């Protein structure tokens, strides 16, 4: 959004009789928004260039009349206020920038007539698809025809028929009839995704949105076009016909796929998540997010989801499993494999667990190729959280790219042709492997990390007793003596620290799957079972402990964290070799080494 301006850059404009000071260059739509006036628009998007082709944001503008002789404003004798020279024709709001003394009318009869006319033309060829349209409920056309339309149709001719159900790419379906040619999607692909694949062909009522010949809309940001489409022309193939949006509950969340920590909204109904969309945060992800992060919710109901506590392969109860785990730990020789995907709170408890057991802590690094936009090279969303809480003092060793198997997301078979940035390098936990081989480590507690992927071979795992806390089944959970099913990021609340050292919180969107237990509760009980102090597992209470013990997080509480996150002081870790390259709102510090590309 617009950066905070110096007072000198502010100009005063008058919108519907109200004066407001806005930064120079702000367009009328944004300025009107500041005074709470809604100027309807379709093609304008605050993060995209202004083209002004929908004509919906027409307003009346005028400037104070100036006496050419004296160069002083002419006052209206009736009111004693400056006389305004209103322009005889309406102007588009998106393309009109604030200038000193600018006067705007958004509710005059002329403006209303204009809007009604524009709406009528937009609706002429728009099909009456609302009952089947996925956009219904969040459709700007619906909203604005209700707010500014004439309410009935004078059009008796046949409507245009255009292709429906065109597959623009693997994840986006186009219904051309519904398109109002606002060109937001074209501008997005060109300007943000830098993958210029979309364009209009033909003229007049034959105008059609399509892909350039030989190209498809298949970049990792294609679904953002669906988000910004003001009507139901671009729809998500995955979400298509699944659920009407008015049933869906919105929960603020964080995309955990990389250290960018894009802000998201999780849309769910009755415990089932239907889709994930980006949430505007101008410091992190603007209004975008990667397609790859939108499918992560499928892990919640994935077939490989762990739903039963297992002790030596048999179903068990929590207390029994905790006692069994404590028994495995009582002889010493314990190693803890923490996770860069755990929340700050979990990492804090992991640290306490390791301290209680006097066990060394290892972290699995997870590095891929950054796309310079919203997927960074570090695929652990919370490696900085581990630093902040003191779980680790230095970054885990980074392995060679591509040396390990791709990250699996909840056992999903992702659609073919999906260019997920799956190039990964997980460092071999060489030190741990050596310790196991030497026999000094007899028990490994893994917090959701698949040790086999982290280059601990199955043969090595047979030498140790593994205690596994995680959400999905994998080779490690199969080999584990004690398996404690825990929650996915959608079933719990917590905080993550992204690459900017911005601590962001996410909330529980759906209730926990049957058989899975809250990570914090399991960890707190495990700490108690192995002889540690009794720690709260409730988020609010735990944050009191965290704030007391972690200097960086002092004075914070979970409830107080703003929705857009809070920047922490990164100076204690300034010298560490973070792997991320540049992303949308992040520039690596000079000291950081480049990503291993």
């Amino acid at each position: 959004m617009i950066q905070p301006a110096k007072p000198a850059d502010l100009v005063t404009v008058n919108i519907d009789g109200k004066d407001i000071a806005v930064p120079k260059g702000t367009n009328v739509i944004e300025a009107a928004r500041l005074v709470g006036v809604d100027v309807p628009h379709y093609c304008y998007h605050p993060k995209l260039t202004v083209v002004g082709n929908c004509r919906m944001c027409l307003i009346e503008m005028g400037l104070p009349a100036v006496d050419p002789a004296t160069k002083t404003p002419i006052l209206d004798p009736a009111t004693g206020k400056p006389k305004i020279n209103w322009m005889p024709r309406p102007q588009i709001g998106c393309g009109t920038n604030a200038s000193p003394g600018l006067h705007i009318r958004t509710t005059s009869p002329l403006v209303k007539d204009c809007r009604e006319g524009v709406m009528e033309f937009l609706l002429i060829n728009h099909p009456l698809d609302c009952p089947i349209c996925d956009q219904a409920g969040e459709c700007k056309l619906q909203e604005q025809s209700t707010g500014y339309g004439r309410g009935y149709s004078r059009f008796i001719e046949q409507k245009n028929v255009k292709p429906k159900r065109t597959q623009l790419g693997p994840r986006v379906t186009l219904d051309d009839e519904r398109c109002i040619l606002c060109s937001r999607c074209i501008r997005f692909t060109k300007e943000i995704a830098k993958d210029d694949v979309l364009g209009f062909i033909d003229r007049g009522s034959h105008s059609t949105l399509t892909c350039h010949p030989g190209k498809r809309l298949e970049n990792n940001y294609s679904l953002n076009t669906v988000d910004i489409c003001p009507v139901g022309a671009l729809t998500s193939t995955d979400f298509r016909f699944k659920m009407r949006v008015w049933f869906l509950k919105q929960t603020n969340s964080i995309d955990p796929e990389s250290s960018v920590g894009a802000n998201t909204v999780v849309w769910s109904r009755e415990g089932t998540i239907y889709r994930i969309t980006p949430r505007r945060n101008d410091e992190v992800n603007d209004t975008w997010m990667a397609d790859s992060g939108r499918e992560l919710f499928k892990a919640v109901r994935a077939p490989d989801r762990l739903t039963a506590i297992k002790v030596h392969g048999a179903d068990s109860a929590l207390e029994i499993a905790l006692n069994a785990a404590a028994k495995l730990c009582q002889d010493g020789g314990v190693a803890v494999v923490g996770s860069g995907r755990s929340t700050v709170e979990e990492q804090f408890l992991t640290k306490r667990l390791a301290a209680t057991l006097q066990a060394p802590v290892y972290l699995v690094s997870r590095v891929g190729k950054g796309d310079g936009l919203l997927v960074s090279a570090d695929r652990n969303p919370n490696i900085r959280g581990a630093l902040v809480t003191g779980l680790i003092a230095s970054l885990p060793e980074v392995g060679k790219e591509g040396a390990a198997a791709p990250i699996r997301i909840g056992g999903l078979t992702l659609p073919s042709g999906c260019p997920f940035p799956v190039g990964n390098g997980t460092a071999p936990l060489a030190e741990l492997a050596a310790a196991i081989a030497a026999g000094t480590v007899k028990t490994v507690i893994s917090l959701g990390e698949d040790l086999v992927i982290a280059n601990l071979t199955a043969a090595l795992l047979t030498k140790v007793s593994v205690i596994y806390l995680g959400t999905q089944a994998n080779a490690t959970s199969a080999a584990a003596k004690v398996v404690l099913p825990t929650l996915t990021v959608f079933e719990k609340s917590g905080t993550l620290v992204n690459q900017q050292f911005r601590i962001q919180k996410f909330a529980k969107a759906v209730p926990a799957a049957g058989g899975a237990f809250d990570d914090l509760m399991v960890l707190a009980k495990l700490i108690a079972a192995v002889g540690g102090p009794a720690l709260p597992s409730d988020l609010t209470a735990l944050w009191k402990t965290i704030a007391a013990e972690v200097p960086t997080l002092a004075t914070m509480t979970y409830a107080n964290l703003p929705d857009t996150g809070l920047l922490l002081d990164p100076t204690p870790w300034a010298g560490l070799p973070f792997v991320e390259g540049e992303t949308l709102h992040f520039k690596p510090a000079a000291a950081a080494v480049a990503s291993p590309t």
Partner: protein
Amino acid sequence: MAVIQVSRKPLTFAERTYLPQIVGGLKTTLKHFFAPNDTMEYPEQRPAIPPGYRGVPTLVYDPHGREKCVSCQLCEFVCPPKAIRITPGAINPDDPTAHVEKRPQEFEIDMLRCIYCGLCQEVCPEEAIWLQNQYSTTGLSRAEMVNDKQKLYELGGTLPDEHFKWDKKKAAEGGGHAH
């Protein structure tokens, strides 16, 4: 306020014995004794259902046999007791009605919850759900009282209706306005 005191007419001796009134009562009951019954003998005789009767909600086909519901879920949204549950789904592209694109995969109305308010019929943009004249729903279990899609169409049948919005649209696809 003028209060008018109306003195009650004193009862005559005959009235105070109540006997004339009792005889009058007996006369009345005897008259009813011989009068024809007012009762309708239900399973054999059925009441005439007045137009506009709000019976069991049903789903209907249009005269061409197309299921009219496109699972817009407005009825599910508007239903006050939340009796309706719809699982939407896409129509198979090789289906003759593929041009409608969407139809309910499952459509369940829990008749134990339904309050026959008719809001679903009111809200339906496709005129696919109708409260028709079926008034007697019984079942031996809760599950039986949930009308599924098949049952709803059985109850609803076909309604003569001159709206062929989707068919007109399909016809237009082949016409001069197609691009």
